[in-house]
């Protein structure tokens, strides 16, 4: 398991807006895969409009990771 400390910077590997989320989550759900500069890849949420390979900052918000464009 890789470890990273937050906030941290990286780039967007990919993202999607999920219209049919599972029980316990509301639609739409904006999910992102980010590759942190130090190496590890992670899943997080976002409130921003993103593009693949965009530079982002990943931070922790109430125990869940989110990212915003740099």
């Amino acid at each position, binding site marked *: *398991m*890789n470890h990273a400390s937050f906030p941290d910077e990286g780039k967007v*590997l*990919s*993202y*999607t*807006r*999920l*219209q*049919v*989320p*599972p*029980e*316990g*989550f509301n639609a739409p*759900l904006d*999910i992102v*895969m980010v590759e942190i500069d130090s190496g*590890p*890849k*992670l*899943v*997080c*949420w976002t409130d921003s409009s993103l593009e*693949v*390979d965009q530079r982002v900052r990943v931070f922790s918000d109430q125990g*869940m990771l989110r990212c915003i464009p740099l």
Partner: protein
Amino acid sequence: MSRVRIEAVGMSRFGRREETLLELCREAIDNLSQYSDPADVEAVFLGTMNPEEFTSTSNLAAAICDVACLSPVPAVRVETASSTGAAVFHEAVRAVKSGEFERVLCIAAEKMTHLDTKRTTKILAEVLAPVERKYGATMPAIAAMIARRYMHEHGMSREILARVPVKNHSNGALNPFAHFQKQVDIEKVLGAKMVSDPLTIYDCAPISDGACCAILSVKSGDVESLGLGQATDTLAVTDRDSLTSFRSTRIAAKKAYESAGVQPSDIGVAEVHDAFSAFEVIDSEDLRLFKPGRGWKGLEKGETELNGSIPINPSGGLKARGHPVGASGLSQIVEIYWQLTNNANKRQVDAKKGICQSIGGLANNNFVTILGAVR
């Protein structure tokens, strides 16, 4: 030890069915019985992914022997998530190769359309890594991110990706066992309800019921198992090197090709796991039918159509033939058997060797099976 042969196959119609899991199994066995009598098989191998949660039934290996009047034959159940149908075939081949059994029955089935979609999606999402589930990711969400990344890395357009379900629906329309037997066009695919962008409902295999089976034998059968391969990978997609290639398929394919003594260029027809449209393109590259990043070009040029140089998913694939999760892997083998024995009717292609590729979970327990017509 000479190669294990497929003596006969059978299938139920895939789709939204009223019948129970065991009744669907009976239907598949009855279909097979038109060609070969399963009465004296020495063992039964049953593959079904999650009957406990989908149907609140268990102890199914014994139950199927009872229902098919095969007791007291020994029977086991095999499970590897959505590649279960391939796994049960591989286990049955090994059992015959071991010399312990000369003739066995292999069945794969799933009953899952009776639950509401949210519940079914939740059960299916249990195959994902906890860290992915924590963020509400489902299989379509992860597949959508994979599709977007592939399009970005290799320059495939959304319109070309839509050719996968268009082709598979066209093939499914020629398959009397398929869940969906109606053609669709690109506009319909692109304009359909969005599941997780960029994937619409037409980019995602349906939820289906269905069963299929095969008798494996040391001595009789017109198709033989030439090579098998299987490999696992990390649960979380983010723990892997690449989003646009499945390492478990690549390793499984290498093992299968080597044990078969076969090259990708020898393969005349393929059935691959198109749970999501982009996966068909990735699968075709992982099987080395196309170079990395070039699978979409083959699709664009029509090379994977029925009349192309390497037809892929002549059955209609998971998309149109349907995806009863535990059964799909074996139904691919059934289709290749029909193709290699000239029994594919309007879907018939000209091939002496075929390959099947089945994905377990989100590509962490994949199987590759190479079959050949017996000379």
